């Protein structure tokens, strides 16, 4: 099936015609705050009056980070995110494209995963975890010297996503995506689940979709769907909110039915067997703050589950000034169009984290961690707003 929606149809389905031109979207937009050339209201306005050329050729079309703050405050229910996706699909047909970061490495990789015959090596991270430890504040966290057990007959599939493989590019930032994946499987094992992990798993396609590369998104989705259906699982769990969103929301939206339940790891951890948990121990920070990833929070409505998990683990959560549905984004934009505005967003968020007085910021999305750690590559930021970061999965795994 190919995507044939036109701009005409998009304008109707996304509610553009209801726009009151109140400007609340632009007022709340974190990109607009730092980049005067970007305005959600102007973009919607252009769509409204069909100034298609300006709409499609605006290089700021690619600056939106999909954080959903605009649609959350919009009194007229305009779906800005869907509008942006559709316009980008159209813009790509005209030869426009997002400016890829990291030398386009990640995009080339994502695109190459659409080739059906690819001899991937995606499971190195499943090898037994050795004594290299996850550390936060130089304190050992996830230290289990253990095997990670998977099976081919479980009713649960762990969708690893690309996070374990980002380390090639982001290890210099102090990011350990492999640890997050390992911690996730460790946690599932501790709960008695030996998940299916696909050896030929492909990128969920979230980034390519957000960029408007509909054909390749659908191709990735089809490849994944085939394997998921063939596995016979009833449920998919992932530690990446973007993968969860893609599998749970985007696939069905664009006609790919998986027929399974899709959950984020935190949702499975709300009732931890406390008798099996090792004590927190005084060496771990007691006061933490939690950053709501946009894709978990505003996109999927999951705010309580991660907090319940942290409370069960004995942590005291000090909330940032903007939290839950008002949490501000980490500036992620599908590895495209990153710049000074994204950096300002990151610094502002880190300031809020620092202001809580917590020693550690916990998040449930590896991309959030990568983006905040990138901001801290700026040496002067490290001094003023540097804070330790850890993923929720690692904190849980450390207790089993």
């Amino acid at each position, binding site marked *: 099936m190919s995507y044939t929606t036109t701009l005409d149809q998009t304008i109707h389905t996304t509610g553009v015609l209801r726009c009151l031109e109140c400007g609340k979207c632009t007022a709340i937009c974190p990109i607009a705050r*730092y*980049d005067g050339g970007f305005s959600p209201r102007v973009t919607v306005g252009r769509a409204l009056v069909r100034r298609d050329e300006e709409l499609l050729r605006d290089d700021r079309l690619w600056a939106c980070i999909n954080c959903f703050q605009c649609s959350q405050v919009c009194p007229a229910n305009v779906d800005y995110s869907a509008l942006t996706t559709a316009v980008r699909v159209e813009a790509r047909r005209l030869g426009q494209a997002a*400016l*890829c*970061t*990291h*030398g*386009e*490495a*990640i*995009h*080339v*990789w994502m*695109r*190459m*995963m659409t080739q059906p015959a*690819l*001899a*991937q*090596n*995606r499971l190195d991270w499943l090898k037994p975890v050795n004594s290299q430890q996850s550390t936060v504040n130089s304190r050992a966290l996830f230290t289990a010297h253990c095997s990670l057990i998977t099976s081919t007959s479980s009713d649960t599939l762990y969708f690893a996503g690309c996070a374990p*493989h980002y380390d*090639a*590019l982001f290890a210099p930032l102090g990011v350990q995506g492999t640890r997050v994946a390992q911690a996730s499987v460790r946690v599932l094992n501790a709960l008695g689940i030996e998940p299916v992990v696909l050896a030929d798993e492909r990128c969920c396609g979230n980034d390519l979709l957000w960029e408007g590369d509909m054909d390749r998104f659908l191709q990735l989705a089809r490849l994944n769907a085939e394997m998921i259906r063939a596995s016979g699982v009833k449920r998919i769990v992932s530690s990446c909110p973007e993968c969860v969103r893609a599998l749970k929301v985007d696939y069905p939206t664009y006609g790919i039915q998986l027929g399974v339940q899709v959950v984020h790891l935190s949702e499975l951890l709300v009732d931890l067997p406390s008798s099996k948990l090792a004590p927190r121990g005084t060496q771990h920070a007691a006061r933490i703050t939690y950053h709501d990833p946009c894709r978990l929070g505003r996109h999927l409505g999951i705010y309580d589950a991660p907090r319940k998990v942290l409370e069960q683990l004995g942590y005291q959560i000090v909330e940032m000034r903007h939290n839950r549905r008002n949490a501000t984004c980490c500036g992620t934009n599908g590895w495209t169009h*990153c*710049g*000074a*505005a*994204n*950096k*300002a967003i990151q*610094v*502002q968020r880190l300031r809020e984290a620092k202001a809580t007085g917590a020693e550690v910021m916990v998040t449930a999305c590896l991309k959030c961690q990568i983006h905040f750690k*990138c*901001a801290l*590559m*700026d*040496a*002067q*930021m490290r001094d003023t707003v540097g804070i330790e970061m850890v993923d929720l999965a690692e904190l849980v795994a450390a207790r089993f």
Partner: protein
Amino acid sequence: MSDNANIGVFICECGDKIAGVLDVPVLVEYAHTLPDVTCAEQAGYWCLPDGIERMRALVAERQLDRVVIVGCAPRTHDALFRRALDGFTNPTLVSITNLRDLCARPHVNDSQAAMAKACDQIAMVIADLAAREAISPRVAHITPHAVVIGGGIAGMTAALAISEAGISVTLVERESELGGGAIETCGERSRTIAAIQMQNRYLSAEGQPAKAGLAMLLQRIHSPDIRVLTSTTLASVSGTIGQYRLALSNGDIVEAGAIIVATGAQSNFQSPTSNFQHTAFVLCDISPEQAQTCTHTCCLTAIRQATEIKRQLPDANAIVFFRELYTAGGAYDDLIWEARQAGVNFVRYPAGQMPQLARGEIVTHDELTGREVHMPCDQVIAVQPMLPQPDAAHLAEMLRLPIYSNGFIADTRVRLRPSDRIERGIYVCGAAHFPCDANRAIFQAYSAAARAVQHIQRSEIVNHAPFAKIDAIRCNGCGDCARVCPFAAITFEPRVSSRLAAIDSLLCTGCGNCVSACPVKAVQVPSATDEQIEAQVRAALGRQGDRETGRQRDGALAYLSTCLPVYLLFACEWSGYSAAEIAGTRGLTYPASARVIRVNCTGRLQPGLLLKALEMGAAGVMVLGCAPGVCHYEQGNERAAAVFEQANALGHLMGLDSRLALKWIPPDDGAVFVRAVQEFVDATRNT
């Protein structure tokens, strides 16, 4: 890319070196089919006077704004054609591709494949040129004033030499008196034995006893062209090449075109006085690791002083206790012979067991005789290695000079074409650079002064080399660019919640390491963009499309249907590319499926680019760069290795790592190049 680019393609027959292997008329025909080409001609030798004349006429007549010469080596003919076309077209939009050594000669035994490659090569150079931006020249104005930091022997000698050339000098000295490390040994108040004869042309033609030498320098330094500031240090430096602004600790601001660092070293050894009967010199217990940074100065000094004691007081004892004797070779070795002749004794002590002083005796174990040695001693000179000044690191940081692992200040040694780089005008001499004796310090001071004078006398330097530019919207101040810049050309200005990178276009050489390191594409070298490199890749692989669609081309273009798998070699012009050319000149052959993409530094490459080449259909991608330690951009090959590791990691994920390779190639060994290419092609064919 200019919308109305008018590209002229001038294909050279090069006698029969090209014409004898390739069908040149067909290549001309092919060139005509390429976008933006409005003129394509051939000639026997474009580089001869009649060829140049004809080229100029065509450029003028057809109003060509970009010119490609398809012929022989850039290193021999680049400058010739740019000079010839200066005034006819922008010389930075003239490109030459080496069809002779990269195609005709190495593939002489497979003319079919050679023709296909020749078409690709022409398409590649045109694609690159079409996307290139002209380079605007930058001018450095050199202020006719020099600042010498450090008023010791080296500093004063340099200041005198520069003022002699008619250039005014400011001499800045930290202490309250001039003389530096020589004050203690050669100063007026010194009672020590200064054993050196200073060879300094400001003193006399012959060597002078050091005391007299220093006194003479101190007298001559007070000249009208030299402003001497004692008890003054450098507080900060700003500005750019030729226009440095030095803020001094006394509040003065001095503008200078050249800076000489002559801040010397900390010497911890005392010099002996001559009123003792038994003098023991104890040299340092040097380890093999320390030997690598040994300065060969202390041993010499001690030996000279011991000899001098014996000469002045033949009845006194002078004994040198040593672990190793490092005398820097040549005439210096004679010093030991002279010392022994004069009656100095040498005793070797065991490693880790320095001689001990007790009750007026010095006791040690003599390794030569195997016996314990007791010697009366009333003066011990412990000879320890010189150390960098405590503020050396700070000074180096202010002046953006590199530091050796032992803390001394290095000179920037960059081996590039002189036309591609403007010298910074900052020079280091004497013990500040590496511990040395007074004569070496003086020699280096002359040398530094000569370079400074030459630099200042140029008064205006024009640089046509490419340079990088920052996109202010994209830059997020992460600092990755500055971390990899070999020339310290990147600084930061504060900005809301961030900082903005700024590139000094006079220091920048366009190596592109910053472009590679930047995660958000905030910096580009406009004359060597990602788009240009990708355009070359596309041109090299373009006919893959034909093969897949099965499209046949007509007549003269039928060569193009001989489609081979294409191997892309990203080669740096200083090593891999030059080795490729040499392979051709030597007549070595290798598979014609290899296409060379020339980059100025492999540190310019990015993981995404290497993988994109695979995505676009390359059968294999190989990076050829300079071996560690010999990169022309200092550390570009380290960047290349990091880039390759990342590309390889992602390649491994996709099962494609066998199609990626990295090789260090010496610049002059065509055989190594050929072997590397053949091995790579064979290896990938088997996967």
